[in-house]
């Protein structure tokens, strides 16, 4: 399983939010490139970059930061936040992202989804964010009515090969990932799933590696790394699948 350190950018800085709430922000790095270098230097295989300003505005706001991060590290990065048309997706890939993460737009605009899937295929990750089993939209500021499991199944049948699933209730809390919800989501698709939200300790990662379905290919870790609960290297070791 791959550990994806998260770099969330707001106002040009690397920050963490609690449960997606823009009012509960902690700044960790004045320059997100420092965070990227630190995680990559510690052995990260992939970075997860979120343009929080973009997610709120509905259009990329930190494209330069993405460009600097992509140039600063050797490992690939995936980038999301505010990607709601084909041009912004192309711009982020152009800026050096290996994958794009699209959320709201994939759910609201089927034509856009079809277009980016046709154009970029497996480089497209669809982010499905859940609150109480329902899909949350627009930078998590709107609550939805659609069930998460049904949504993932439907998107999967439309050709989405990789999902990012965030459990909002536990995101930023470090109280452990929502394993039950994750297993329902993983069972709803033949595609790959990246889990996000709630990781606070190495034992959370070990539980994921042990219990998660085979198609759960990775996990996003944010606050726990910034607060030095464990290092990227220790996290990778905890995620190594134990065989018999």
């Amino acid at each position, binding site marked *: 399983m791959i550990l994806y350190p998260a770099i969330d950018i707001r106002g040009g800085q690397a920050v963490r939010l609690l449960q997606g709430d823009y009012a509960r922000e902690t700044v960790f790095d004045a320059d997100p490139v420092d965070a990227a270098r630190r995680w990559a230097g510690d052995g990260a295989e992939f970075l997860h970059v979120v343009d929080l300003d973009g997610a709120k505005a509905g259009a990329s706001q930190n494209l330069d930061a993405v460009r600097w991060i992509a140039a600063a590290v050797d490992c690939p990065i995936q980038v999301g936040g505010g990607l709601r048309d084909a041009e912004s997706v192309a711009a982020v890939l152009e800026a050096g992202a290996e994958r794009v993460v699209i959320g709201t737009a994939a759910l609201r605009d089927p034509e856009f989804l079809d277009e980016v899937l046709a154009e970029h295929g497996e480089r497209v990750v669809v982010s499905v964010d859940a609150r109480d089993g329902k899909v949350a939209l627009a930078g998590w500021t709107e609550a939805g009515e659609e069930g998460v499991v049904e949504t993932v199944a439907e998107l999967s049948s439309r050709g989405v090969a990789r999902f990012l699933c965030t459990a909002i209730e536990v995101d930023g809390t470090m109280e452990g990932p929502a*394993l*039950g919800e994750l*297993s329902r989501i993983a*069972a709803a698709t033949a595609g790959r799933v990246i889990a996000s939200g709630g990781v606070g300790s190495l034992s959370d990662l070990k*539980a994921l590696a*042990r*219990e*998660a*379905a*085979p198609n759960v290919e990775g996990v996003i870790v944010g606050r726990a790394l910034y607060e030095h609960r464990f290092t990227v290297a220790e996290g990778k070791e905890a995620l190594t*699948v*134990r*065989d*018999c």
Partner: protein
Amino acid sequence: MTTRIAILDYGMGNLRSVEKALEHIGATAEITNDADAVRTADGVILPGVGAFPKAMSRVRELGLDELIGERREAGVPILGICLGLQLLFDSTTELGGAAGLGLLGGEVSDLDADGLKVPHIGWSPVRWEKESRLADGIETETPFYFVHSFAPRPEAGDLLGSAAYGARFACAAERDNVFGVQFHPEKSSAAGLRLLSNFTRICASVPA
């Protein structure tokens, strides 16, 4: 009344995913190492991930070896999963060797993958080598999910299924009401749930 399955907890298991899978198929699952709880269950699952010798010493420390033997004598169905399957055999060569529970005949040794990368991680088709209640309704060559570096060499009479990774290896075994699978049914989608459901049905069919 639903069928009650005890999932033996000796600190080295993929317990929750097994529990969830059992609940999904309508069985009552209990993660436990309490003798009374195990004695009242209709069936016993021995899960496990990790190294055989360490697991076996944990099992002994908790007295689960005697408890498993006692349940087997009582005719209660037992299913070993992954390392749990390996523990049911006579012995292993892993880490200098160790004795197992001896409920299935044969030895566990390194997977002979003929040069392929070990551990073997992924989906492989399972070929049923004989008819079994455990395989009921699951076609031969149905893929199951594996994560392992060792495999059992069952006595001919105990061999239930095989798979190929580099070379062919035994991946399922059965003797009377003792069953074992090297793959992870709890991570093997619909076919895995069917196998667990078959096991639950076997448990329900044994008179208490």
